[in-house]
């Protein structure tokens, strides 16, 4: 019986103007999306080229310094670590332009001092730290919504509304509702039939358009997919289905709740605008004020103040005056005492810089995550985050990258220390050049950075979307059961 109603609905829908319009709009949007992302500038191919260049550069960098000796490599660091470009930005752009493409783990600069009297001249390389450069610092371009799959998903919510706003209110007005109910069908079956009818009519053009989109991208050859990508895309289609289903239920709810189709549409439209645009963005702006974090300048100031204290304590540049410098002797392999002092100084310096760099970006991440958690009240926002999660774009993709870069930082340091243990001539004092092994290392033995992608974070969002579905199904059901037929 449900399917009978559903088929009736589908036949009816197929002949409507809205279906015709969707049939035009959806393919146009998806084709536009595929062209923009597979042929446009700064596309995936260009990103892969840059990435490969950076990887080669990085390998050369490690090779150069590994040959110069373990100590050199230990202080210069493993170089600039590029983030793997993502082929699936066309699905979820995730504010791609804001996301930095690499982190820095190298320091090529030298510092030095001229010696006099007791104060020995010395040149040193301050140890590297993990730095997080910002992408697009002075970009004056105002952030806009991108025409990615997520955006089309938002529009799908709108289309779902257009298919359901009068599903019950309209029949009620025409009087056909009481006719249908005079048959031996339960109300639940009618609702489900109508739901299936709308859902199928929406999903069919969507899936066709997606196939066209993928075909164009595939034929263009600019974005090659691995089998794993196809799986993720399949997951995204599932997310589309969940979102469309939510809005179909929502439409049925308002349609049965409100006597007049127009009133139902007004409610739905405003709900949609709220869920899609107003709500997520307002919370995004608001969280910055709700949970304020110090500005970049302030963090820098604090860092300078603490480093200043450190410099006052050790006085690496200044041996004159009443207070003698702790570092008046230069570090050397013959003087383990002085080398240890330098190591203490460097360790503290690295620790301070790392604390500020890591701390600040963690604060930023927490702020964004808080905003995201709050905005998940909107199913559209949840859908967006799930899409970004599957595509591994957006802030979560970057956070994964940062987490792995930090792990790699530790791996690299551990490697240096273990290698150093193998050299009996070394003083084993990290991180001073004179305290470490001077013999070259095999460049191939140096650990390389590899990025692994995890999709577990998506599960929460999928669960939320399923819950939204259940919730809206129940309220639609209740509201229809309680509604009047006339």
């Amino acid at each position, binding site marked *: 019986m449900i399917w009978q109603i559903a088929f009736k609905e589908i036949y009816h829908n197929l002949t409507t103007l809205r279906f015709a319009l969707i049939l035009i709009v959806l393919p146009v949007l998806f084709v536009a999306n595929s062209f923009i992302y597979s042929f446009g500038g700064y596309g995936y191919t260009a990103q892969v080229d840059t990435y490969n260049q950076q990887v080669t550069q990085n390998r050369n960098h490690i090779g150069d310094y590994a040959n110069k000796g373990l100590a050199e490599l230990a202080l210069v660091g493993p170089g600039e670590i590029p983030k793997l470009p993502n082929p699936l930005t066309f699905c979820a752009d995730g504010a791609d332009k804001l996301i930095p493409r690499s982190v820095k783990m190298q320091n090529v600069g030298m510092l030095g001092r001229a010696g006099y009297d007791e104060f020995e001249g010395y040149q040193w390389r301050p140890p590297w730290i993990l730095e997080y450069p*910002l992408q697009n610092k*002075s970009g004056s371009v105002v952030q806009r919504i991108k*025409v990615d799959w997520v955006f089309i998903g938002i529009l799908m919510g709108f289309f779902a509304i257009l298919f359901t706003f009068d599903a019950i209110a309209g029949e009620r007005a025409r009087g056909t509702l009481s006719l249908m109910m005079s048959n031996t069908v339960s109300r639940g079956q009618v609702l489900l039939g109508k739901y299936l009818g709308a859902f199928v009519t929406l999903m069919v053009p969507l899936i066709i358009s997606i196939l066209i989109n993928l075909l164009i991208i595939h034929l263009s050859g600019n974005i090659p997919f691995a089998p794993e990508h196809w799986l993720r895309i399949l997951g995204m289609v599932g997310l589309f289905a969940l979102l469309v289903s939510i809005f179909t239920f929502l439409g049925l709810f308002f349609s049965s709740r409100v006597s007049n189709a*127009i009133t139902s549409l007004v409610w739905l439209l405003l709900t949609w605008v*709220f869920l899609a645009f107003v709500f*997520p963005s307002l919370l995004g*702006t608001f969280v910055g004020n709700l949970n304020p974090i110090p500005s970049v300048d302030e963090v820098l100031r604090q860092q300078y103040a603490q480093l200043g204290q450190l410099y006052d304590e050790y006085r690496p540049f200044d041996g004159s005056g009443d207070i003698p410098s702790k570092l008046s002797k230069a570090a050397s392999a013959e003087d383990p005492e002085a080398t240890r002092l330098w190591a203490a100084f460097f360790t503290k310096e690295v620790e301070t810089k790392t604390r500020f760099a890591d701390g600040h970006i963690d604060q930023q991440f927490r702020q964004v995550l808080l905003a995201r958690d709050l*905005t998940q009240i909107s199913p559209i926002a949840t859908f967006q985050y799930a899409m970004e999660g599957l595509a591994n774009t957006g802030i979560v993709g970057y956070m994964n990258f940062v987490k792995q870069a930090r792990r790699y930082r530790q791996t690299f340091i551990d490697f240096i220390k273990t290698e150093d243990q193998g050299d009996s001539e070394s003083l084993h004092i990290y991180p001073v050049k004179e305290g470490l092994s001077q013999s070259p290392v095999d460049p191939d033995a140096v650990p390389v950075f590899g990025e692994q992608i995890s999709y577990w974070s998506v599960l929460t969002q999928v669960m939320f979307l399923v819950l939204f579905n259940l919730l809206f199904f129940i309220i639609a059901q209740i509201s229809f059961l309680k509604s009047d037929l006339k």
Partner: protein
Amino acid sequence: MSTLWLVIQREFVSNVLTARFMIGFMVCLLSTAVAVFVQVDDYEKRLASYNAAVREAEPETQEWDLYYNIRPQAHRKPNPLGIFNVGAENFGANTVTIELAKPVFELTFPIGDEPAQKRGSDNPFLAMFLTIDVVFIFKIVLSALAILFAFNAVSGEREDGTLKLVLSNAIPRDMIVLGKYLGGMLSLFPIVLISLIVALVIALSSPVTAFDGNHISHVVLIFAVSLLYVSTWYLLGLLLSIWTKTPATTLILSMFVWVMLTIVHSNMATIVVEKFPPYQSKPEAAFVQSAADVWDQFRKERDTYVKQRGYESLKDSISWELGTRSEKTNRFLTFYSYGIDGLYLIEGYILRDIDKADTSIFQEILGYQEPLRIAYADKVEEILNKPAEERERNAKFADALSRISFADVYHFAVGAIAGTDRQSYNNFIQDSRAYKRRIVEYLKDKNAFTSRTWFSNDQGAADLTDLPVFQDRQLSLSESLSRAYIDIFILLAWNIALFMSAYVSFLRYNLG
């Protein structure tokens, strides 16, 4: 006249009594209020960081004692009208540090120590959330309401059969169209008015927003443009209502048009231009290379001049008291910073035992060299500005494409009126360049380049009490109008065109 009034009244009453009016009214009011709340908060934050930046710059000014190392700053003052339309307020640099040898430029890749920097920003990642302001709410919500009021004005009455009744009276058809338009607008008018008043009240209730008469007049202008915008949508709805047979068709059609014009079109235009930029010549790195060449030219020209004066190098131009010549090398120190890849060339001089030195010729040479350096910095600026100019041209192209939709025309108009659009940001950068020129003029007037105080304070510190201060300019109403008039004109043209089409279509309307 009374018949027209009758039609207006009837339309007005039939609109106002509907549920959609009440819901629309409440939602518009609520979302405007929330948006203003958030934007006021945001503005307060911007203002606080601006004030902090100005405050911190003050003691720094006191420390300058030599002419060559003054670094005055131009701070971008947050615009209180950003509460209504945030526009580009949160984007781009807000502090430009003027250094005589450093061009003012903006490149997309970080070079370190940029002249134009963004201060007070705490989290660049929050920019991934779309910013919403009153104008955005109006752009989306008011347009939807206007459409929902208009869609059944004609086709609905036709379906109900009341249209025949109305037309069988002695009321001329043009009166009916005009009456329906005015009646619809009359019912939308209070929504726009009260939403804006509420917005204004919330904005004024914040202790930091100081609105003067000028700002209020801008808000009034924004109100007028918003009405014009709403009217465009109402007329479009009316036209569709005349063109289609049933209100259901009108509704679906107008909803599609609405979603396309307000949401899809502008995003599509922007991203297409971003991905397929019409103006694209060289990558930024190429410009940076030519900047380095210019600085090399400067060095050559400078060295030629020094040789022409008969000295091997700058330091030979200083004559020292006899008996100290052997230590000469230690007494003259040049330090320079040749910005990354040669973007700028700052040179400073430290002379030890300066009281034993006669620097008159050295000063003369500096009097030639420093203005030359500034002239070269201007040349470099011209080169380094090219990428930004290109970006601007592309953005303008995207804007032009966006203007196909009058929803974006409205957005641009309000941005221009409020002074928060990209143009205002570019003006700030221009103003900071003008400020630099004023500083140069000031130094010329003081003969600072040939003065000993350029590099040494042994004969007293530089007198910088009357150093020009950067003045932020505020747009007067007429200036705003002159910038927004094209967009206002386009909106007006749409109104006229839509009204004429609706009018003609309705006169030829076939009741059958």
